[in-house]
């Protein structure tokens, strides 16, 4: 099978052929990466071979190379979806079917799915005649294949050929789909169930009513849980297709049954798809059927189901018919929600906390204050940090409804309480939410209520809190800007430089390290630098060597001339300090002065450093 290449490559000989020759040989290289590389350049190979040799030599070779690694096969399946032009255009697109057919039967799901995706794509490029002559027989072959891998692949192909074939072929396709819906293996039934909705969409309404409904009912009562739960998904599409008056008789019995299925996994699926189902069945059925069903799901005995339902509380309420939305929520949904606030499972509470704040916009100011605020407060004090975080990160939607004053009166005390909690881990959690809160509440409110807290953390007796507090300041400045920093926090931070406790003086330095970059050159040079330089005369060696480290950190923010005239003399002096560590860090700073500034969150490693160098005998004399 070695023949001269046609005009495109032959003329300029070896030079252009060689790289292609390498690519072709590497299709079978032992190294997967090289094979993958070659497959990804399959279009280059095909282009060099020309359409005829691609059809007669390359594709037959590829059809039989299904032994390869998954990633190679996956790439191949994807490439073939874009190969129409390379085999000679739509007229020859059917030549791509054999390799894709063999890929559609491999055991690896991702590869099969990709092959099906490519087949769906190229089906559009088949002429109606080719579709019946080449494509549809392939679908039939797959549908009646010996192995379930081929039958599962067939499920995804019916819907693309159905609209474009004659009515006799349509009847055959419907028959094949019916057969696969009652296949022996659960995999095929799962594949059929997951494609049921999609297939229903291309069917004529009469057939939806006659064929699809009976298949749907059968799949929804399959003995395998994994099949039944997929039928729930199909329910959404089917319900959308049917006229309102048929829903009650054709879909609702099955849906009711699914919502009360013995298996929690099926009920979970119903809860997970609830908003879609609600939209599909319309307001009347929602009022009569889905509300009680939703109540049951919120009270389900399995936590996974409750969590899935809790996640949908806001969406469900939002989509209720407006005329009696409030009444339904207040009498039917809210009582269940109240119970979930004190659920035994933290995932349930956390799911609820992520959406509960959204109810305030639906219920309005008065209801929010009377009914929802107590729930928010309870969740804000929850033992699980994720629940608290979810509440805090959604404060803004309540803010819009009840206004900042009301919010501050009720929620803020709870936040302050947590901020002063005796357990440092709780305090730490609140600090981490601070930038988020600041963003939601705005600068004015923040200055009034929370600023004092943030500053108080700087002198906390636990290092981790002080560390987090400095990091918090940096994030606040990122939010509120340098001007705000200059007026509110910089003076306080610098004031601590005169604190009698050397640990607080060091906090000043740590804050400066964190803030210099976000505050910019002006503030750093004019306000921070003088303080740092002055601290180089501190009597505690730990402070002095931290001055050296700070100077190194803020160096890149300063101007060259400042470095030369102000910083260097101080470092030179520190380099002759009587303390060994101060000398060491001064030298470090002098040699690394111009290293690019890179803010690193102070981490445990830096804390370790403090521990190593902390010498208690040098504790402040005062």
């Amino acid at each position, binding site marked *: *099978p*070695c*023949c*001269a*290449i046609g005009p495109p*490559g*032959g003329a300029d*000989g*070896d030079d252009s*052929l*060689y790289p*292609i*020759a*390498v690519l*072709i*040989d590497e*299709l*079978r290289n032992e190294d997967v990466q090289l094979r993958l590389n070659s497959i990804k350049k399959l279009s280059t190979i095909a282009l*060099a*071979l020309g359409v005829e*040799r691609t059809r007669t*030599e*390359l594709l*037959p*070779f590829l059809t*039989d*190379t299904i*032994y390869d690694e998954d990633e190679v096969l996956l790439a191949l399946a994807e490439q073939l979806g874009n190969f129409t032009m390379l085999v000679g255009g739509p007229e020859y697109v059917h030549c791509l079917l054999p390799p894709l057919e063999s890929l559609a*039967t*491999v*055991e*690896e*799901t991702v590869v099969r799915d990709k092959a099906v995706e490519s087949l769906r794509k190229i089906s559009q490029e088949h002429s109606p005649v080719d579709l019946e002559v080449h494509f549809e027989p392939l679908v039939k072959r797959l549908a009646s294949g010996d*192995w*379930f*891998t*081929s039958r599962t692949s067939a499920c995804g192909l019916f819907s693309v050929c159905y609209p474009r074939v004659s009515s006799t072929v349509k009847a055959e396709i419907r028959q094949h789909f019916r057969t696969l819906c009652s296949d022996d*293996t*659960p*995999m095929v039934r*799962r594949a059929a169930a997951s494609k049921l909705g999609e297939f229903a969409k291309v069917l004529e309404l009469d057939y939806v009513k006659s064929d699809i409904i009976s298949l749907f009912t059968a799949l929804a009562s399959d*003995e*395998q*849980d*994994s099949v039944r739960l997929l039928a729930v998904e199909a329910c959404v599409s089917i319900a959308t297709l049917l006229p309102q008056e048929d829903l009650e008789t054709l879909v609702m019995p099955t849906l009711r049954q699914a919502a009360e*299925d*013995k*298996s*929690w*996994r099926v009920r979970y699926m119903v809860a997970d798809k609830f908003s879609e189902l609600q939209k599909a069945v319309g307001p009347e059925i929602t009022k009569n059927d889905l509300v009680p069903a939703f109540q049951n799901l919120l009270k389900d*005995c*399995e*936590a*996974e189901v409750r969590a899935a339902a809790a996640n949908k509380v806001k969406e469900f309420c939002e989509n209720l018919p407006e005329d009696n939305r409030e009444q339904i929520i207040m009498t039917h949904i809210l009582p269940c929600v109240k119970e979930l606030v004190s659920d035994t499972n933290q995932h349930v509470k956390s799911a609820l906390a992520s959406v509960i704040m959204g109810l305030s916009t639906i219920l309005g100011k008065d209801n929010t204050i009377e009914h929802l605020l107590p729930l928010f407060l309870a969740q804000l004090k929850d033992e699980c940090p994720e629940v608290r975080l979810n509440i805090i990160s959604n404060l803004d939607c309540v803010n819009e409804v009840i206004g900042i004053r009301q919010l501050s009166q009720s929620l803020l005390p709870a936040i302050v309480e947590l901020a002063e909690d005796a357990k440092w881990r709780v305090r730490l959690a609140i600090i981490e939410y601070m930038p988020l809160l600041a963003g939601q509440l705005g600068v004015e409110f923040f200055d009034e209520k929370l600023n004092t807290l943030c500053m108080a953390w700087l002198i906390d007796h636990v290092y981790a809190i002080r560390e987090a507090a400095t990091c918090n300041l940096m994030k606040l400045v990122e939010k509120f800007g340098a001007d705000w920093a200059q007026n509110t926090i910089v003076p306080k931070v610098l004031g601590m430089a005169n604190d009698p406790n050397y640990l607080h003086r060091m906090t000043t330095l740590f804050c400066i390290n964190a803030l210099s970059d976000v505050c910019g050159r002006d503030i750093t040079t004019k306000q921070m630098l003088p303080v740092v330089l002055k601290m180089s005369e501190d009597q505690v060696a730990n402070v002095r060597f931290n001055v050296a480290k700070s100077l190194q950190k803020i160096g890149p923010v300063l101007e060259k001339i400042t470095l030369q005239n102000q910083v260097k003399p101080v470092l030179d002096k520190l380099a002759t300090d009587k303390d060994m560590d101060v000398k060491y860090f001064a030298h470090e700073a002098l040699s690394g002065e111009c290293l690019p500034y890179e803010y690193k969150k102070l981490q445990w490693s830096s804390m370790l450093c403090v521990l190593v160098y902390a010498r208690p005998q040098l504790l402040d004399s005062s």
Partner: protein
Amino acid sequence: MKCFSRYLPYLFRPPSTILSSTCHTEADIISTVEFNSSGELLATGDKGGRVVVFQREQESKSQPQRRGEYNVYSTFQSHEPEFDYLKSLEIEEKINKIKWLPQQNAAYFLLSTNDKTVKLWKISERDKRPEGYNLKDEDGRIRDPSTITSLRVPVLQPMDLMVEATARRVFSNAHTYHINSISVNSDLQTYISTDDLRVNLWNLEITDRSFNIVDIKPANMEELTEVITSAEFHPQHCHTFAYSSSKGSIRLCDMRQAALCDKHCKYFEEPEDPSTRSFFSEIISSISDVKFSHNGRYLMTRDYLTVKVWDLQMENKPLETYQVHDYLRGKLCSLYENDCIFDKFECVWNGSDSVIMTGSYNNFFRMFDRNTKRDVTLEASRENSKPRAILKPRKVCVGGKRRKDEISVDSLDFSKKILHTTWHPQENIIAVAATNNLYIFQDKVN
């Protein structure tokens, strides 16, 4: 259903070959044996971490009687010895269990597990190989690039059949204790792996996540009184599985009720007979294997001295109890001293659930016909394995006069134990692992 009980004792005819390794080392000891769902393939795992797959010879018209011979199809190293540096623990390569997956395409798939890691293996055939390079000539010599004036596309040429085994998935890091069993769900999407204290549920396609569905580890390990010894999925009900415990009980769990199955839905236990209570009661009541019948109606359990069949509808006592080697009851003291009392015997059903089989000592294995209540003791040994011979039933006598052909309890060899056996899913073909030998017996062809 054909009733084979008519001619009990079974006329099992040994095949001409006994599959065994010539040099007998510890690594060669067979640790598990399992037929696939069609019975065409048989896999064994050994202490050396190897898996050997045997394939049944295709029927030929000229020698119809030769149908049934199993030949080696593929051998591969499934697990290697490892060392857990965090816990300073050696992880043995020994294959604890093999489970076949139903065939899904031309290839075969099986799960194999050692103490910690489950692997999904694909065994596939290849009979074509690509030929023709651009940069090399037929002899493999590199061609001068300037002589390349045309492109060649490789062509697939037939070659000798090659069977390859490739590890498709590795399910690791989910077990703190030793995995004792794996079982594939009837949904063919999930499986469970079970260790001493926990049952984990896996999706066959996902290796980075598993769900713990049973956890019996007490908060304080000193309060530990019971361990899980084996677990299996129901053959048809995707939501039901059973696990057995060292206390002689079996729990049936329904995965529909809750995501965590710490609460069982059925609890099978036989009240203890106070008259036979002894120091060894608890040890010998520990269940070493639990198996659902093919029809899903019954559970079979094996403890040290008996095999019991339980009806899923009756929790308070077993439907049937068969004595495997009751003559050992008087020897429990010495069996405790040589640790044999802790041997974990497995048990199997025949294809129609009418006969059960389990192993014993001295290379004996036992079969019980559930319909006729007849039982038989057979021996797996080279001596009586002449081709075309029929296995003679063996008898063990306790004290007193010993008749010809009988063997005395005192002369039983306790180092020769048959722990692992398997029964062809449809036909009367059994495979019996006796240390490093695998015996495949077949019902007499009439």
